C-alpha cells in the first residue's frame, strides 16, 4: 500500500472535523465545558495497541459503523470519570451507590458514548458527503486492554496494522476524561479519503 502525504493531511482533516463535533455536542449534553485534547492518527501494529491502553479498569462503549468508511469504535471512560458523569446526568434521579455501576449508570454512560460516537461519525459523513450507519452501542465494564481485544481480533483477520484515530476528551473544570479510539477498515478508509 502507498499513501502520499497529501492523503495523510486529508486524514488529519477528517479527524479534526469529527473531534470538533464531539466537543461541541458533549458540552451541550453535559452542560459543562468539554474540549478535545488530542486528535491524532497513528499507523499501528495491532499487537501494540493493548499495551498503549493498559489494564486499567474502564467503562467501554463499543460499536461498529458501516458505510464509507466502515469500521470499529470504542469510547473508554476511566471508572472515576464514568462515576462523575453518571452523577452529573442522574442527579436527583438516582442515589449514588458507592463504587459499583447500576444498569441505569451504564445506560447513562452508554448514552454519552453514543453522543460522542455519532458526533464523530457525523463529522466524517459531512466532510465526505457519505452515509455512515452506526450500530447499537454495547457497554462493558472491564480492563481497557480486554475491551479493545475483540476489535483488534476483527481487524486481525485481514490485517496486521491499522490507522488508529485516537482522541482524548477532557472537561475543563471537572475531573472527567475519556478516550475515543476509531479504527476504520483500511480499504474503505482509502476509498473515503479519495473522495476528499
Amino acid at each position: 500500500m502507498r499513501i502520499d502525504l497529501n492523503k495523510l493531511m486529508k486524514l488529519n482533516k477528517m479527524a479534526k472535523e469529527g473531534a470538533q463535533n464531539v466537543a461541541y455536542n458533549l458540552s451541550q449534553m453535559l452542560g459543562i465545558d468539554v474540549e478535545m485534547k488530542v486528535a491524532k492518527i497513528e499507523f499501528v501494529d495491532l499487537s501494540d495497541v493493548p499495551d498503549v491502553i493498559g489494564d486499567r479498569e474502564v467503562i467501554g462503549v463499543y460499536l461498529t459503523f458501516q458505510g464509507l468508511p466502515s469500521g470499529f469504535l470504542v469510547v473508554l471512560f476511566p471508572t472515576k470519570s464514568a462515576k462523575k458523569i453518571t452523577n452529573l446526568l442522574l442527579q436527583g434521579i438516582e442515589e449514588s451507590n458507592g463504587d459499583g455501576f447500576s444498569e441505569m449508570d451504564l445506560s447513562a454512560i452508554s448514552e454519552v458514548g453514543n453522543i460522542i460516537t455519532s458526533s464523530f461519525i457525523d463529522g466524517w459523513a459531512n466532510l465526505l458527503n457519505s452515509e455512515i450507519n452506526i450500530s447499537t452501542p454495547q457497554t462493558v465494564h472491564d480492563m481497557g486492554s480486554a475491551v479493545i481485544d475483540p476489535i483488534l481480533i476483527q481487524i486481525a483477520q485481514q490485517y496486521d496494522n491499522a490507522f488508529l484515530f485516537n482522541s482524548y476528551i477532557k472537561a475543563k473544570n471537572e475531573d472527567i476524561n475519556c478516550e475515543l479510539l476509531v479504527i476504520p477498515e483500511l480499504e474503505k478508509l482509502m476509498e473515503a479519503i479519495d473522495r476528499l
Partner: protein
Amino acid sequence: MTPVRVKMAEYIVSNSDSILKTTVGSCVAIGIYDGNGIGGLAHIMLPECNGRTDLVGKFADTAIPAMVREMEKMNADISRLRAKIAGGAQMFTLPSSLAIGERNIEKVKKILRKFGIKLIAEDTGKNHGRTVEFHTSSGRMVVKRSEKIIAEL
C-alpha cells in the same frame, strides 16, 4: 520477581524460572511447561494462520508448534509437556464478534491434543477479560480480573 509482559500475537519461552504476564479478552493465553524448569506463554488472537508463515504468535495453529520447537531446543522433556489456558471470552454480543473466543479455545485444545500436550486446567469463556500470570518453572497460572485473583490453575 518482576513479570515479563507477553504482547498480543507473541509468545515467550523461558528456562530461567520467569513469570510471564498478559491480558486477554477473546484472545487466549496458553501456558505450556515441562515441570522441569522450562515453560512458555503465548497470547494468540485467531485460530488459524491459513498458510501464513510470518507472525507465528498470532495464530493458535502456528504459536503452539513454535513454542514446542523452542522448548525442544532448550532440551525440554517434550513427552512431559502440559498446558493451562485462559481467555476466549465473549466481551460483546454483536453478531460481528460471533463467538471468536469460543473458536479460539476449540482450536487451541485441538492443537494441544495433536501435539500430545495434556490440558491440565483452564479458565475460559464467559464475558470478561483476564490478566494471566504464568510461572514458567512450576506451571502455576494465576488469573486476575482488575488486580483481583479469580482463579489459580
